């Protein structure tokens, strides 16, 4: 068996052809990169997050399963609605909706963070959240660009 530079180059050409084949036959989802960028961005605390303003009418911390707190945040371009409810196990569930739709979101407290489960049409949810002072960071797409926002702190 002869191993030389030519066969190395031949192998290289074959591997390049294979790469093109897979790029064609099993391409990544078209928006994969954008979702990955959002997931990384929301994890990066060194970013400058634009602070949303709270526009909720009233707010009182949720204490029982019957209570449900609705919070609303916005700036000129983006609005976010959060529903906080208590669960049987003494924890909280936060259902959210945003316009434009979120690409990634985190709820953070002093020592912990919860990643949002994303649903369709801008809906998202944080489950099994411990009661406490929290804020939400989120990434949305505005005019083709990703933008980072953060809410003021609120009690869940």
């Amino acid at each position, binding site marked *: *068996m002869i*191993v030389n530079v030519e066969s190395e*180059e031949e*192998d*290289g*050409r*074959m*591997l*390049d*052809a*294979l*790469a*093109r*084949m*897979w*790029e*064609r*036959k*099993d*391409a*990544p*989802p078209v928006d*994969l*990169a*954008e*979702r*990955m*960028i959002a*997931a*990384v*961005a929301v*994890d*990066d605390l*060194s*970013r400058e997050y634009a602070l949303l303003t709270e526009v909720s009418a009233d707010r009182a911390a949720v204490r029982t399963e019957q209570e449900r707190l609705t919070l609303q945040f916005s700036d000129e371009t983006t609005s976010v609605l959060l529903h906080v409810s208590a669960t049987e196990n003494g924890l909280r569930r936060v259902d959210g909706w945003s316009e434009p739709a979120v690409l990634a979101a985190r709820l953070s407290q002093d020592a912990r963070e919860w990643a949002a489960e994303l649903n369709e049409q801008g809906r998202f949810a944080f489950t099994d959240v411990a009661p406490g002072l929290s804020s939400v960071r989120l990434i949305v797409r505005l005019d083709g660009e*990703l933008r980072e926002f953060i809410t003021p702190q609120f009690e869940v």
Partner: protein
Amino acid sequence: MTGVEEDPLPRLPELPEPGAVPVTSPRVTDQVPEAPGDDAGDRRARWQEAARLFLRWRDQGDARALDELVRLLSPVLWHVVRAYGLRRETAEDVVQATWLTFVRKHDTIVDPLAVSAWLTMTARREAWRTAKIDGRADPTEDEALERRMPTSATAEDQAMGELEAQRLWDAVGGLDERCRRLLRIVAFDDRPDYRRIANDLHMPIGSIGPTRQRCLGKLRARLDGPEGMRRG
């Protein structure tokens, strides 16, 4: 001889565990190997670009550079992860986990030129672990996926030729799983980079050369037609 309990892929040149010994590799100024072809040149450009973006993010705190790095390498990580037979949704989760690990542990990467290699290595580990936990994807998934895809006759199709892609696809599909996985990973890995790093660290390239040769040999036999076909 395929081990069941460990990644059956021959090891690429060993890079330290993420979080372990800092990775070193040649200096940027050393990286001027001649390009045998456009794709290899593209690949080299890609890992050098990755190094540049990494530096802009790490040293200048430029968050947009990190965004660009993610945009540049996510497709590569996708192909590396899909080589492990993970479903598309799971593959996306693994790519995301790879990036989050990178953000948390990037300070262990001393040499920016090692960024691409660090990421593909981390993605492979995570993909392998996930494949073991989840159970493998339905082995027919790839074929099913392929059948669903419409065949479009665009200009781009002409550039490569759908027929050629289909021929390669069929030939690769006839290889054993180990070869399919190996070829997909090395096809997307930054090969020149690995070799340089292996050299620099005085590490053996391991069995990757012979195994790659063997798999490419099988592939060529299949491409050469029925009389060239061999078992295995």
